[in-house]
């Protein structure tokens, strides 16, 4: 913060004004009845209030018009700060471009006082760019350095207190002016009272943080067109086109574009030279694919030329793309030709050295596992299913599958509850029909449920057709070889 000795237009013997707040309030009351404020009305009052600054009021209008453009943007809350900034440009009459002041069309009003502010109404900012009078800002106390007239930057050792009253007056003045400026905006009446719309554009201009983007490099076609004097379609074509089907304006290119013919229609005409036996949909798809590829390729090459892409990526991509496509096709064939036929078990997986899947054998273990699983794979877990000839008995679920909690032999908890648990299990056993029922369940004799599926269907797999032994062994009598028979 640099303080300069500025010769202000105001005289040094300025007495502190006390703004008559009551009068101000009255003036505001008057304003509310009018649609717009007429500046001329309040001049008389102002002259009465203003003692010393009468000479300034004429100049103040011009001043503030021009000084606004040079000001820094500050928070409207920090009126104190704005007043402490010593703006040297505040007093110069700079005629900056009028267009900068569009947002600041609000001129100072009758409440300006000795220091009229400039406004940024978009941010509700009143900028007081007048020089601070440091002599007034600090209250001098009796002390060493207090004989000096001008106190610039007061060192900590100096016993100076900030004159709060002075600062408050500045703030009050700024506030008043801001609110008066609000009234100068175009007022609409609404159901809650007079309403004002703040300007859309920001009044303060901020410099760029980052450098602007570099200009785009020309593509190959643009270069050629420029050279030959061909006009690009960019300038000729509009972004939107009227779509016949939906009857609205849609974008010319891209997703859901207007007049999209590339959809697959159920019926496609055979035109002129086309082969009537060719697949038109496949052809359409191929054409689209090739267009896409070409477009991508040319875009990539343009990027390479512009330097956005590493040189050589396009060529690499093209080389790999064809390779990848062929590999993809082959991979798809793998699935088609080397898949086990339906009905072949899942645990029979073709590995590299296993040979043709059709000739692979399943093995006894795999079959028994599958049978076990199948037996209990019904809603009733196999309880009410008809037992087939030769079917082994139905075991319960794999007992070892459940993870058990460790119970030490001598745990107190175990010993104390053992008898109870045993009793519970025993009751369960006895009430549940005992061993007889268990046997019957295993043998499938309980499979007499009354479900919708229970009807006598002769599938030809009765006991008469059942063969325990197959092949050559079946040629003999179907008798089970027991120990007795061996003897």
């Amino acid at each position: 913060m640099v303080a300069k000795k500025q010769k202000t237009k105001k005289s040094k013997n300025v007495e502190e004004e006390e703004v008559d707040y009551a009068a101000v309030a009255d003036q505001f009351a008057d304003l509310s009845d009018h649609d717009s404020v007429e500046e001329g009305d309040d001049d008389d009052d102002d002259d009465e209030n203003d003692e010393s600054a009468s000479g300034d009021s004429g100049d103040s209008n011009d001043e503030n018009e021009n000084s606004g453009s040079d000001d820094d943007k500050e928070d409207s809350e920090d009126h104190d700060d704005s007043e402490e900034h010593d703006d040297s440009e505040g007093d110069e009459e700079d005629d900056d471009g009028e267009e900068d002041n569009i947002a600041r069309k609000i001129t100072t009003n009758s409440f300006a006082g000795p220091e009229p502010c400039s406004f940024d109404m978009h941010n509700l900012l009143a900028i007081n760019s007048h020089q601070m009078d440091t002599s007034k800002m600090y209250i001098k106390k009796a002390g060493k350095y207090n004989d000096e007239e001008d106190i610039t930057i007061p060192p900590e050792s100096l016993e100076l207190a900030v004159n709060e009253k002075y600062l408050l007056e500045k703030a009050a003045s700024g506030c008043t002016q801001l609110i008066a400026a609000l009234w100068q905006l175009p007022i609409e009446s609404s159901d809650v009272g007079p309403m004002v719309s703040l300007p859309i554009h920001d009044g303060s201009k901020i410099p760029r943080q980052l450098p602007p983007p570099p200009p785009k490099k020309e593509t190959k076609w643009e270069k050629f067109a420029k050279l030959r004097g061909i006009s690009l379609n960019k300038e000729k074509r509009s972004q939107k086109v009227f779509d016949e089907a939906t009857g609205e304006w849609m974008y010319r290119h891209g997703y859901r574009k207007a007049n999209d013919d590339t959809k697959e229609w159920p019926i496609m005409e055979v035109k002129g030279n086309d082969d009537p036996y060719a697949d038109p949909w496949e052809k359409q798809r191929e054409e689209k694919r090739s267009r896409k590829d070409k477009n991508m390729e040319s875009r990539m090459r343009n990027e390479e030329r512009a330097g956005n892409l590493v040189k050589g990526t396009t060529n690499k991509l093209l080389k790999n793309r064809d390779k990848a496509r062929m590999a993809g096709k082959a991979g798809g064939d793998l699935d088609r030709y080397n898949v086990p036929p339906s009905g072949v078990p899942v645990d029979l997986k073709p590995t590299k050295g296993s040979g043709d899947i059709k000739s692979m054998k399943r093995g006894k273990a795999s079959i028994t596992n599958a049978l076990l699983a199948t037996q209990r794979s019904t809603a009733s877990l196999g309880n009410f299913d008809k037992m087939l000839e030769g079917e082994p008995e139905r075991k319960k679920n794999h007992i070892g599958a459940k993870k058990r909690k460790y119970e030490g032999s001598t745990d107190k908890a175990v010993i104390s509850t053992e008898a109870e648990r045993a009793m519970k299990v025993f009751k369960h056993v006895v009430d549940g029909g005992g061993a007889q029922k268990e046997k019957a369940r295993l043998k499938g004799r309980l499979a007499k449920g009354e479900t919708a599926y229970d009807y006598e269907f002769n599938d030809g797999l009765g006991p008469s057709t059942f063969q325990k032994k197959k092949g050559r062994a079946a040629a003999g009598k179907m008798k089970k070889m027991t120990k007795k028979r061996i003897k």
Partner: protein
Amino acid sequence: MRPLTEEETKSVFLKLSEYIGKNVEHLINRSDERYCFRLIKDRVYYISESLMKASTCISRDNLLHAGTCLGKFTKSGKFRLHITALDYLAQHALYKVWVKTSAEMSFLYGSHITKNGLARMTENTPQYAGVVVYSMSTDTPLGFGVAAQSTEHSQQLDPTGNVVLHQADVGEYLRGLEDDIF
């Protein structure tokens, strides 16, 4: 040594109840001392609690048996009763069969009991019920088996027909039929 799981307890009780029915309760809740079922390498043992606690001092590798072996669990998860359980079965048997002195020896050699060798049988024995075989002369338990026919049907059988199917007999102690029974 570990206590039995629910599933295992269930299969043991199922098997036992075939022979002693509801008297299994007497095994579980005893008046004199608390007895428990423990598993040592797939074999089910019926031990008193004090003995069980004492046997925990012996390491698992070295511990062979503790208490009375009731039977063992086969690889497929089924429970098989051994002759060593005869003591308790005989105490609480539901259905009993007395075998004639002449047919005693054949039973002790492992064959089934035919009608010829049958002396007495408890009434209302259902078919395939677990049955304890006693000697007629000394009234000592000889083994146990499964009733091939119910009591009524066995009366109608011809003399060579099987009445009791052999499961286990005391002769096995001498014969050592199963290698891993002891």
